């Protein structure tokens, strides 16, 4: 439970970014997530807001910040869809919290670990989405498990490119 505590032993290792980046990167991710499926059609197997949430949650290592960011991104995605608002919100809130909690314990400089974590959290996000939709709300959802696996792979591929790019914008002290 030390992960859930307030005193982080990694406080000194918190990654910091330019303030503008906290606004621009999530907004860009949301806009691209809304626009790219029009270009790629049914092959848009990725979730850019999730990738960005995982990246900042891992880097910031603050479960509260990760939770809030995940909730904001998820609610935003829900608002653009015709689903009830909160389904993606719950999924990404949990993912943001877990990513930040893992960030406390793992070496976030290790690229491979971040990619694996991204893949697993993508699957978890899909699982929570389906759970909330079908079990909690009792709504009829038609989904295919392999699509969710493809999406997790797509997220990992994007993370492979995006994470090093965002690392370059890190404020070095």
């Amino acid at each position, binding site marked *: 439970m030390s992960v*859930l*505590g*307030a005193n982080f032993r990694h406080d000194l290792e918190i990654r910091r970014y330019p303030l503008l980046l906290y606004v621009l990167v999530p*907004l860009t991710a*949301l*806009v691209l*997530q*809304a*626009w*790219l*499926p*029009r270009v790629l*059609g*049914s092959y*848009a197997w990725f979730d850019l807001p999730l990738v960005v949430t995982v990246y900042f949650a891992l880097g910031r290592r603050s*479960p*509260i910040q990760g*939770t*809030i960011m995940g*909730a904001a991104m998820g*609610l*935003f*995605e829900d*608002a*653009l*869809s*015709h*689903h*009830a*608002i*909160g*389904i*993606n*919100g*719950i999924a990404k*809130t*949990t993912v943001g*919290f877990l990513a930040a*909690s893992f960030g406390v314990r793992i070496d976030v400089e290790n690229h491979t670990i971040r990619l694996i974590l991204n893949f697993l959290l993508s699957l978890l996000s899909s699982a929570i*989405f389906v759970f*909330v939709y079908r079990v*909690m*709300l*009792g*709504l*009829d*959802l*038609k*989904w*295919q498990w392999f*699509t969710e696996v493809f999406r997790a792979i797509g997220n990992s591929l994007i993370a492979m490119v995006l994470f090093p790019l965002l690392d370059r914008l890190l404020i070095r002290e």
Partner: protein
Amino acid sequence: MDSFFTRYRNLLVLLAMLMAQIVGLAVQVRRTDEGRSTVDPTDAPGVRLIRLWAEAMVAPPERLIHGSKMGVSSFWQNYIDLRHVREQNHDLQKTIDRLRLEQASLLEDARQGERLQALLQFQQRYIYSTVPAQAIGSSGSDQSRVFYLDKGSSDGLKPDMAVITADGIVGKVRDVFPHTAQILVINDPTSGAGVILETTRTRGILTGNASGLLEIVGILADNRIKPGENVVTAGGDLIFPRGLPVGVVEKVLRDPDRDAFIDVIVKPAAHLDRLDEVLVITNTQPRFSPEQQQDLTTSEEVKGAEVEAIKDQLKASQIMAERLPGLIDPNLPPDQQPLLDTSNPVPVAHPPQALHPDRFTPEATTGTVPVASDGSKPAASGVPQSAKPQTAKPERNP
């Protein structure tokens, strides 16, 4: 107590966030009379406000991206790809002329149909007015097949209006904002449209499945439904006017849940994955609109005279054909028919005579002996007589 909140504040924040969203979901989802859960189709004011904020944040960048894309393509089309434009323009003008002629000739049929429908009190709805719009964004999720248009309530759009392209139906307006509108595509599982199969006249409900394919559900097993059959809107859903193309039957599958039913998979006529420009039907009318009437009148004025001229020409040619001697005159004996007229500069080629005449040979059935042009009998060796024209001039009856 203070240390408890301090110690578990991360967890408490998480639980608070989750609980708030669960409560929010509980407000939005309700139970139907049949005991099924469903999302309230009309958003509560708070929910609508969140959607409005999200749309207001995403729409401007999307418009910018879309505008840039359109600008580049416009530059390409207007300045670089201008080859053969003059020829295309000429061809298009010809097509317009031809279509105007066709329209003018069809006008009377259309009016007659309208009169008959009025007599039968048949409330057929025609497309009265449309608003062209550009698709600028999507929901970003394949679980929610919606997209956004760059036109909204300020352009006259309202919920439940039909969205179409020239190829076929696309979906309906689900939600309208001041300058944008959310469109629910017909291949979404929550979508539905009344359709009819063109040949078998089988009616059904069109909806989407998990893969984004269109399927007609609730049809009793019918062997007559074959791939390739056209599917059109039935007009009973009060959204899509009747007769709009939907797609063609791709395959017919057994309903996995109900043995007596089948699922008809439909290939959409419109390119649902690559939508760019669409038309929103903002109004439908049971009769021709004044604009349509004006179009038809214009067409009639412009091309109606030509149609009349063509009709006159056809009539004159028929009269001439009746007055002029025909190729076969029933009053003349066979050897004096106009066909045998050698004054004709283009002689009529006779078919070669049969090598072995039998009872099916025309001359044999009549019992006459075939006579060659020079009056001699046909060669017994079987060599066909030449089909040279007759030398004798035919006599005309006074």
